[in-house]
């Protein structure tokens, strides 16, 4: 191994240590250098608050859009987090409407192509829901609180 290559490899090793330690000290996450802070927060309340999308059928009934095949390429976690970030943005409401239209459009395109077997939807709503935790999670379909964040309906 040449000296030049040895110095190069040493530099890589030192940079890896340096950037990771910097991120750790800053408590920051700059992908792909992450401190993997997931689950690091302390959960103290037996409750969960998150964002959910529901589709609106022609008869006005609501259909939960939890499954990844309905939200593709999003999954439920990324969608819920994404809606949160959008809400906090300065132009949040405008973005939210645009985002909901986008999800509904993709849902319908994929439904028509046979990528999923969900019902035909004419609208979509975003809710913030809160569940008081139950030992068997039996109240999953019955949140204790539900706040409408935004909606896209026909007409």
């Amino acid at each position, binding site marked *: 191994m040449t000296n030049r290559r040895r110095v190069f490899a040493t530099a890589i090793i030192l940079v890896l240590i340096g950037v990771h330690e910097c991120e750790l000290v800053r408590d920051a996450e700059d992908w792909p250098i992450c401190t993997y802070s997931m689950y690091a927060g302390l959960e103290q309340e037996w409750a*969960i608050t998150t964002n959910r999308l529901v589709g609106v059928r022609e008869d006005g009934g609501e259909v939960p859009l939890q499954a990844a095949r309905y939200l593709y390429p999003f999954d439920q976690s990324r969608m819920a987090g994404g809606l949160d970030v959008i809400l906090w943005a300065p132009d949040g409401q405008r973005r939210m409407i645009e985002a909901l239209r986008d999800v509904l459009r993709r849902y319908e395109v994929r439904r028509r192509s046979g990528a999923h077997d969900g019902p035909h939807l004419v609208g979509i709503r975003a809710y913030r829901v809160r569940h008081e935790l139950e030992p068997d999670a039996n109240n999953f379909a019955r949140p204790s609180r539900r706040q409408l964040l935004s909606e896209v309906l026909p007409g």
Partner: protein
Amino acid sequence: MSERHLPFLGSWNRYWFAPESPANLGLCRCLFFSALCVCYWNQDFSAWGDVSLAFWFPMTLFTRLRLLPFTVPALSLMTEVWKVSLAFAAVGLATRVATPVAFLLGTYLLGLPHNFGKMHHFDAMLVLVLGILAVSRCGAAWSVDRVIAQARGKSEPEPSGEYRWPVRAVWLVLSLVFFGAGVSKLRHGGIAWVRSDNMSITLVQHAYQIANENPATSWGLWVARVPYLSKLMALGTIIIETGYPLSLFSRRARWFFPPAMCGALVGIRLLMGPTFSQLVICHLFWVPWDRVACWFVRVGRRNPADAGNPGT
């Protein structure tokens, strides 16, 4: 400055650059890229080209490099090229080209979804490992490149530090990441992260479908009902994560922390849902595959069925 003047330099050089045969690194490369092929063969990143920019909140890396989502056809092409580069790197064909391509395209494609609202952690480490392999000489053994070189009359590569440091650099990345995760928990939650109902609550929360995948079993709810079991799990997590770097220096620790971490990652999938198969794949680098291969050869030679066959 020489090793005589700086004793630390001697230890450093021995640790990272003691001469080693290329077999282990070659096998690690082969298995790592093969596992990535399996993991990502059916993945299509092109759909992100069709997502509204209303969701676009770029991460630092994408902001600094001014990267945007490409169109669907462009992303589709990039995905295919990336998969081919993974396959080439797995078999060791044009490795010096395949591994940098796998790294550069992988950084963009794996990073792209994290700009749409939420950053997941499961694939960040892959990018770092791809980067290490991209600048290593990992195609020197167990590769088509080696077979071609042999056919052209080139001699076997000599043992070198070139084949040692990349494997250890992957160990280092794993250690830094898991140590960071452990410290993060202690910083944000303190000892209450273990002693309170934190783990029980987290387990039940995941039954409400909040992760990228739902829990593979309902065992999490059962564990959550037994407070001491949840606390034991929390304590185990902290010990495994903060103690993980010991594996860098102790052979004994290597027998405990990496397998325990793989167990914990599988446990997360079963009890809570999130998938961390990419992190398990990175653990391939802890196994001395050259010794495993030698062991198989020895066992094969001892096989009684081969005893009477001098040609074996």
